[in-house]
């Protein structure tokens, strides 16, 4: 059973981790959670990203954004680096989300095959 006592402990460790590693905070990961994103399956994607971030204790920001106008490519994950440059991943599912997290967030390597660019090239 989860308890408030446990939350209190998590809160203390989390605070320290964030302070220590804030300067290394590199990525912001956003999942499209408009009606289109949610209906297309964004929930398991966001869930998996939160789980990966917690598992690796990685202080990136995992959050949500609304519909970004690319509904046909949902679920969409956007990764912003420290310079604000954006990589857009499309048709993401829980497994791809884990692969993207491992490659892009943990190893600084864009997971090319899942990007919007790759998808658009395929369509041509």
């Amino acid at each position, binding site marked *: 059973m989860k308890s*408030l006592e446990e939350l209190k402990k*998590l*809160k203390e460790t989390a605070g320290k981790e964030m302070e220590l590693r804030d300067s290394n905070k590199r990525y912001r990961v956003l999942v499209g959670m408009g009606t289109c994103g*949610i209906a297309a399956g964004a*929930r398991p994607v966001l869930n998996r990203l*939160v789980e990966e971030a917690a598992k690796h204790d990685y202080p990136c920001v*995992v959050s949500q954004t609304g519909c970004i106008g690319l509904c046909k490519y949902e679920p969409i994950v956007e990764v912003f680096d420290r310079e604000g440059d954006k990589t857009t991943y499309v048709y993401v599912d829980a497994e791809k989300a884990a692969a993207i997290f491992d490659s892009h967030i943990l190893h600084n390597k864009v997971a090319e095959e899942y990007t919007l660019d790759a998808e658009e090239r395929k369509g041509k």
Partner: protein
Amino acid sequence: MMEDLAMHLLELLINAVEHKADTIVLEIFISEEDERIYFLVKDNGEGMSEEFLKNATKPFTTTRTTRKVGMGLAFLKSLTDYTDGHLNIDSKINEGTIIRFDVKKDHIDLPPLGDIGETIMFTLSKKPGLDLHFVFKNDNNAFIFDTIKIAEEIGEVDYTNPSIALWLKTYINEGIGNIK
């Protein structure tokens, strides 16, 4: 389209946060006596004008300026239409919005409740400092999760932190499980 009730609620909660709410009340009341499930989502966001409210449950109504399509409330209206339910929306500009809806509990077309803990985790991780008062009850018991009470007990909590977000999801679902 909307697989479960948690998905409808997530829509409403995200709507509230995107319209500047910083306090949200979410209540789910499963009444065996009435054979109904009652939902309440109340926020102190920017609210809707009478004019907007008139059309709010029609498809393609939206406040967004980036596009002209809105489906969230239209899906909810359709859910209450086909599950012998009711939907009522009260809203005042600059004061907030109260959405109440209920559905027939064992209606054959009623989707499952879904993962409410996940819905709450997503909502609180969307906006740091957001306050939520959550009640899940049946005719005899209630589970309450209140961010303000928790902050009074142990100080401000950052629900956007991934480890804390996961704690939250499980805590809520265990609480609900004890009531069901």
